[in-house]
């Protein structure tokens, strides 16, 4: 049949395998205006789902594993805090999301078959930048004198605005250095680099900034509930904003400079670097500055609001990017979609669930079978 959106031939099904447009009778318009999120087609594009946005290569069946891991990690962090093992809880919170990112990269095998230097580079870049900004934050942090004489433990301008702003821009240098490489030309490459660099940055910064705190003992005194709110903010709320903002900025850069010329305006004004980078930085600054005037529980709620905004912004960038990147290749043989399990012709999208096949793990070619053959594993 002929797709009403791209006007190309596509097999019968629920979605066009070339452009991802729904093939329902009443569908009109471009494929990117569809409501099914291109990287997780069972979700609405505006649904602020964390795992399917930060880890867009995960098939649906694998997402639950990462959700469980995240929930387990948060429970451990809260449990350690409840036992007043605050330093350990702080270390665990700082490294929770970086660990999940590394697991994700291993699971989906993003760069299988090629040297892992690119991902290693952005992670290392993020970590080094995080250490540097952690040391800078220690240097500008208010001292005991400021607290006792002025009743002020916050440096709003430097800690709440300047450092988060500069930190985001510096951590983005790592992914941007990979932008000229033609082998990394998908929007999801930019998202992966931005996410990995930001996760490493946040973890390294929190550990470095707390270096004096770790000398205060295994079970230092302190109020437990505020500690739990703060750890959730430092381990989840703030890193999500940083990761989402960095990934969204990278997605905009990749779509503009690596996509075909017809697609570079797909995100509209928000996709222009002059808008995308300051917008990402503004979101990170806005999230960070809340810490300077809100109690711990208030900051957590504040961050949750920013998380929702950043996640939706990133989902839109991924969605548009994936739907614009239709491959100009012939329709391939039938494969079992790893996301829904249905048979679909190999091209850009699954004809049954509409997910972008680019947002799924790679085929690991086996010696005994050609690359393009369906995987031997049964669908979940």
């Amino acid at each position, binding site marked *: 049949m002929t797709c009403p959106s791209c006007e190309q031939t596509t097999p019968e099904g629920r979605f066009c395998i070339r452009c991802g447009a729904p093939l329902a009778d009443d569908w009109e318009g471009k494929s990117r205006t569809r409501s099914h999120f291109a990287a997780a087609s069972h979700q609405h594009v505006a649904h602020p789902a964390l795992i399917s946005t930060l880890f867009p290569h995960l098939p649906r069946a694998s997402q639950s594993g990462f959700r469980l891991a995240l929930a387990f990690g948060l429970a451990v962090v809260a449990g350690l805090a409840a036992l007043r093992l605050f330093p350990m809880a702080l270390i665990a919170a700082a490294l929770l999301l970086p660990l999940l990112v590394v697991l994700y990269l291993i699971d989906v095998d993003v760069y299988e078959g090629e040297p892992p230097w690119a991902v290693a580079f952005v992670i290392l870049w993020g970590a080094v930048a995080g250490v540097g900004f952690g040391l800078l934050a220690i240097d500008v942090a208010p001292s005991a004198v400021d607290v006792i004489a002025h009743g002020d433990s916050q440096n709003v301008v430097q800690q*709440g605005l300047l450092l988060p702003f500069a930190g985001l821009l510096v951590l983005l240098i790592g992914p941007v250095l990979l932008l000229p490489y033609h082998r990394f030309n998908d929007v999801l490459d930019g998202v992966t680099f931005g996410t990995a660099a930001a996760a490493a940055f946040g973890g390294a910064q929190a550990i470095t900034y707390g270096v004096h705190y770790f000398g205060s003992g295994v079970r230092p005194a302190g109020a437990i509930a505020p500690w739990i709110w703060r750890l959730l903010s430092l381990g989840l709320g703030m890193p999500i904003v940083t990761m989402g903002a960095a990934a969204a900025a990278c997605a905009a850069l990749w779509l503009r400079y690596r996509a075909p010329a017809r697609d570079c305006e797909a995100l509209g004004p928000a996709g222009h670097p002059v808008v995308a980078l300051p917008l990402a930085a503004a979101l990170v600054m806005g999230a960070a500055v809340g810490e300077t005037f809100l109690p711990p529980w208030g900051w957590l709620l504040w961050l949750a609001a920013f998380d929702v905004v950043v996640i939706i912004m990133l989902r839109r960038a991924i969605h548009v990017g994936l739907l614009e990147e239709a491959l100009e290749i012939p329709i391939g043989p039938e494969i079992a979609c790893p996301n829904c399990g249905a048979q679909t012709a190999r091209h850009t999208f699954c004809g049954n669930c509409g997910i972008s096949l680019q947002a799924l793990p790679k085929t690991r070619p086996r010696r005994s079978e050609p690359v393009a053959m369906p995987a031997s594993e049964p669908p979940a």
Partner: protein
Amino acid sequence: MSTEAAAPGSPHQHPSHHFRAGSHGRLRIRRTLAIFVLTFAVIVGVGAALTSVQAPTRHPACPPLQPCGVPAPTVRPLVALSVFRSAQSGFSLEYDGSLLTIAHQDGAGVTLRVQFKDGTTGAMNVQAAPGISPSAAIAARVKLLQGSISQLARDDDPADELLGAEVGLRSGSGAVFRGDLAGPQGVSQSVQIAIESATNGRRTLLATVLAPAQHVGPQSDMYALADQIINSVRWAEGTASS
């Protein structure tokens, strides 16, 4: 990485052409969770080991119903002390100018700063709290600190207990608290706050010591300096200490 096909020999040809969507993830749910739990346990274990190694050793200065032994020695027994006198509140105090510097002073009192070798700082503030009792002065100070110190809570560790709270040789009230200095980047240090207050019936004075937790405690140099200063306080003329 792109799966887009490129013409052979093209300068933009991609070195690898492994299609995506041919399989599930490598790990599946059980292996994902197993690896995560194992790695996370290692992280927590390493964190526990590091914090244990760095943890200061603390013992109560005076176990209940036990002799306290010899008081902690002062840092420098024979030094020429500097004098601060509050023109508005009338009290005065002496401090070792080679170890402490005045960081801030106003009509209510003075804040002294001490620099530690690890780059952190401690501070001591002595100020008048007119019109309120010592316990009310302490409560007001704690309320003020709650706005700037995270996770502030009373320190019930016997090793940190204040023994015989006084200011200017007058008995009063005292309490110890613990909290953290934090920012958007994380938690920078745990601090201990010792507060003592006393009154002569007409005027209440409040002394507050704030320093990183590793630099305070009954046997610490910081507390020895603070004791020296608190004991040196002279009340306003006409209301001299007994």
